[in-house]
């Protein structure tokens, strides 16, 4: 990694940490590709977080895996089901499991210090997970996720809609977890033992992964329509994904379907977000799965086009059989009146005054003066979003001790976990998220709210004309994003930036939702 003159040889103020405590990787089980766990209501899944051996780009690495798999098992359930997950922590670190996007009972949300104590190495915890909403969800640890999630602890939950026609007919479905991993010639780039490092921009990897593998491969017949369930499980990278020029139809997002389907050229997906797209492969050949961005180099003051190929979809010359030809349905953009009608109940609240405003900011007071000088200069231009590590030298030296990321309540000035917001089940709250461009280093943030769902009503005063229920929304630098939060689930719920290093640097608050008043 290049370093500024004068800062050469400096290291972040942490003890370098790697998983496995120096264990010989050959003594660990080799991870296997994820299996599908089709579970019914009342079933129990045994889930072990454990050390595994992975070989990526020729390097043998000690990593983590659920049940020795990469990604973790794909949990396949019907909407309305409740399953038990018997979690065993066989790591060297405490851990938990958070069921991202699932509106489950608060006690099983997996947030240490808020909903449970961390599960210590060797201990167990029984989670009860109820799937209220159909869609694509994912699970991951909520303890040092900058390490544990990055090392492979993530998996998806595909919750089937009870209605058979909820989605368009397709030839197949693929569940893709998008990730990256930072390695150098010695293997995994070290993490910080005492606290997270790379807290300015988060840990960008230099190898992009799809379902834990550097080269995704799929073979389809000519004319096949594939529904992709996409999840960004990376620590900080926002992807701009396309399918080699194939037509992409946007169908759904975090918590269900859009009011209306629409065509898109690419899919911009921030950490923790999910999108459901349908793609038709019309012609024989190879379609590259690409992440195309405009990288910013603050040091040299320039943009550069950067394309990573994450894999390819090989299309055979033989067409799909006539009975399986879904091109006509694919060619139509569907409206989902059921979705719109459900949202209709909330529309009278769209124009209400903002109930709470959160200002997204940061403090870098403990950073060395030279780095602050550099950041002051290089953030004269504040891009709405950054798709690469635009300042790797400063990022490398930042830690959870010298950078604080902030959610500030505009009304009270309280910050992060000092904020006290209390609601009752059944209430709605209009919340404005303002990403302060005057922060020392502003950056876009994927804001996630646990255990509830929300609608993104508007950005910068312009109404969102095609709504979908969300649990994670990107707030660009300088923008005001208005959301309508439905408080449907009692308990103490975390809300935070889903850049793993940002939550480790403080960017979180707890929302208290009291049970609805009962009448005798």
């Amino acid at each position, binding site marked *: 990694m290049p370093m500024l003159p004068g800062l050469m040889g400096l290291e972040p103020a942490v003890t370098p940490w790697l998983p496995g405590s120096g264990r010989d990787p050959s003594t660990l089980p080799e991870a296997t590709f994820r299996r599908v766990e089709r579970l019914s209501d009342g079933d129990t899944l045994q889930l072990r977080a454990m050390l595994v051996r992975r070989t990526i780009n020729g390097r043998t690495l000690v990593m983590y895996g659920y049940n020795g798999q990469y990604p973790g098992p794909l949990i396949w359930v019907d909407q309305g089901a409740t399953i038990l997950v018997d979690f065993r922590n066989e790591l060297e670190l405490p851990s938990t499991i958070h069921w991202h996007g699932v509106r489950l009972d608060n006690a099983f949300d997996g947030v240490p210090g808020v909903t449970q104590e961390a599960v210590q190495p060797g201990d167990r915890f029984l989670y009860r997970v109820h799937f209220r909403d159909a869609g694509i969800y994912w699970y991951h640890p909520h303890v040092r996720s900058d390490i544990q999630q990055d090392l492979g602890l993530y998996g998806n939950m595909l919750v089937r809609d009870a209605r058979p026609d909820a989605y368009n007919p397709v030839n197949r479905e693929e569940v893709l977890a998008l990730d990256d991993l930072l390695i150098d010639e010695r293997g995994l780039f070290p993490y910080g033992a005492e606290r997270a490092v790379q807290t300015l921009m988060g840990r960008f990897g230099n190898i992009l992964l799809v379902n834990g593998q550097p080269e995704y491969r799929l073979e389809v017949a000519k004319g096949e329509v594939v529904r992709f369930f996409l999840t960004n499980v990376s620590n900080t990278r926002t992807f701009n994904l396309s399918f080699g020029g194939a037509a992409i139809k946007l169908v759904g997002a975090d918590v269900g379907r859009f009011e209306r389907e629409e065509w898109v050229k690419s899919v911009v997906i921030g950490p923790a977000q999910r999108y459901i797209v349908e793609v038709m492969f019309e012609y024989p050949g190879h379609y590259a799965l690409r992440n195309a961005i405009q990288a910013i180099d603050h040091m040299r003051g320039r943009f550069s086009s950067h394309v990573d190929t994450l894999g390819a979809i090989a299309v055979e010359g033989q067409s799909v059989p006539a009975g399986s030809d879904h091109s006509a349905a694919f060619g139509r953009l569907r409206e989902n009146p059921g979705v719109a009608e459900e949202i209709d109940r909330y529309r009278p609240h769209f124009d209400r005054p903002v109930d709470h405003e959160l200002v997204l900011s940061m403090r870098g007071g403990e950073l060395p003066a030279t780095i602050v000088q*550099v950041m002051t200069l290089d953030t004269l231009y504040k891009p*709405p979003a950054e798709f690469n590590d635009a300042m790797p030298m400063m990022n490398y030296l930042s830690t959870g001790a010298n950078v604080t990321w902030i959610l500030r309540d505009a009304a009270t000035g309280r910050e992060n976990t000092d904020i006290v917001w209390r609601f009752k089940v059944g209430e709605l709250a209009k919340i404005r998220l303002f990403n302060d461009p005057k922060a020392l280093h502003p950056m876009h943030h994927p804001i996630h709210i646990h255990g509830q769902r929300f609608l993104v009503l508007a950005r910068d005063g312009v109404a969102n004309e095609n709504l979908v229920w969300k649990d994670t929304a990107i707030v660009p*630098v300088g923008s*005001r994003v208005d959301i309508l939060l439905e408080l449907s689930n009692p308990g103490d719920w975390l809300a935070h930036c889903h850049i793993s290093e940002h939550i480790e640097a403080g960017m979180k608050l707890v929302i208290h939702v009291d049970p609805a008043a009962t009448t005798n």
Partner: protein
Amino acid sequence: MIPTIAAGRCGRPWLTSLALAFAILVSTNPAVGQTRAGCDAPGTHAFHCSVLIPTPEAHGATGVMRLFLAPTPFGVPVSEDGRIVHIIRLELDNLKRRPGRHYVAWVATPELDQRRRLGSIGDDLQVSGVTDWNRFLVVVTAEPVGEAESWSGPILFSASSPSGWLTTMAGEEIFGNNELPVQSQYCLVNKC
């Protein structure tokens, strides 16, 4: 590369969204003849605003350039190759109409090797358009015809995209000095 408003097979949803966005943006503007607010005015919601730099040809007229992010279902609008898609809105004040002069706005690369028409300045003294260039200049010229497809007349105003502030720091003094001031010495594990 612009405009990238056609998407997928038909592109119409993008066009519809942009049209809606324009309508909303325009509807928030003051009436013709009313003095417009500057960049400090509350409630405009642009993520960036800068004052248009006038030339003597502007004859006392003023204006601002507001940038908005284009509508997108994803939170951040980017083109297929990753460029941020901006809506540019120019708002002018006190610009006098003169016979034979039609005011047209353009967007150009900083090198001026590519120029595209943004649109004619309407009676309401504003114009909006879309670009996905990383860096750009906005220029208002006086043209002999309102439908001018190339820029030939005198320049009245210009402005630079905020990305124009992205400058190289490689040659800055602070990076060439190996003897950092004491307060800059990073107190590091094993090195303090």
